[in-house]
């Protein structure tokens, strides 16, 4: 990794904090520094682009699975057996 100076942080620092940056887990100041660096640095931007696309693809695997009605009914029945009173759900 090159020690290119594109702003107040160097490339090694930027790349080693890419995931923290993409997760929004850095201080506002650090987020700003890295954003500025990425805007100016042709070396770091492709790494950012790769990681951003990777995380986007992971998030896209989320499925809105709904619990099968049979299972829901079974759990409600078990809860009633366990003494849960007045359940209004089927």
């Amino acid at each position, binding site marked *: *990794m090159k020690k290119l100076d594109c702003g107040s942080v160097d490339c*090694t620092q930027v*790349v*080693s*904090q*890419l*995931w*923290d940056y993409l*997760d929004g*887990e850095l201080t506002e100041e650090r987020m700003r520094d890295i954003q500025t660096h990425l805007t100016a640095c042709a070396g770091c931007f*492709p*790494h950012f*682009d*790769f*990681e*951003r*696309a*990777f*995380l*986007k*693809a*992971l*998030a*896209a*695997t*989320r*499925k*809105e*699975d*709904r*619990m*099968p009605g049979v*299972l*829901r009914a*079974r*759990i409600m029945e*078990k*809860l009633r057996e*366990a003494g*849960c*009173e*007045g*359940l*209004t*759900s089927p």
Partner: protein
Amino acid sequence: MTAAPEESKKEQDQRFEREALPWMDDVYRFAKWLTRNDADADDLVQETYLRAYRSWHTFQPGSDARRWLFTICRNVYLRNRERERRIVDTGGDDAKLETLAAVQSHADLPSRSWDDVFGAVDLGPAIERAISELGEPYRSTVLLVDVDGQSYEEAASILDVPVGTIRSRLFRGRRLLQEALLAHARDSGMLPSGDGRHGS
């Protein structure tokens, strides 16, 4: 902490129905992620809700019921698997190294539209398979943060580990996933094989 002292059992039960039952689909999805098996997931959700009902008096009113249910679900899952082996996690510095290692894994590849690569129809099932094959505790962490969108802090609460542990597990899990996906992309011709790599 307990519910308000004047709350009757019936009122507690009604509050359970109002606050815990709406999360059934979410707990079901989490259970499927953990077990990777429909029948096991069904049993896990059922046990989670029965335990949650029995422990409802310990639930802090006004706190996050979904997170509380996820914690119970995971604890039941771990207990059922009898797999509470000691796991030594790396600290924050290693998390930084994981990020660098992950970047290195694709640093030599020619520039391209990564959205197109990761969004390719073929890669969707490969991503799901790679996640399901990821070992614990990395899979739970990746699923909670990257797929379910929980913050580091929320995942730490559910998995009952420090935030730094979540970070190191997450970064290791991501790196392992990237290696698996890049291998898949090369094998399927979506990316050039090792011979075709560019120097940096």
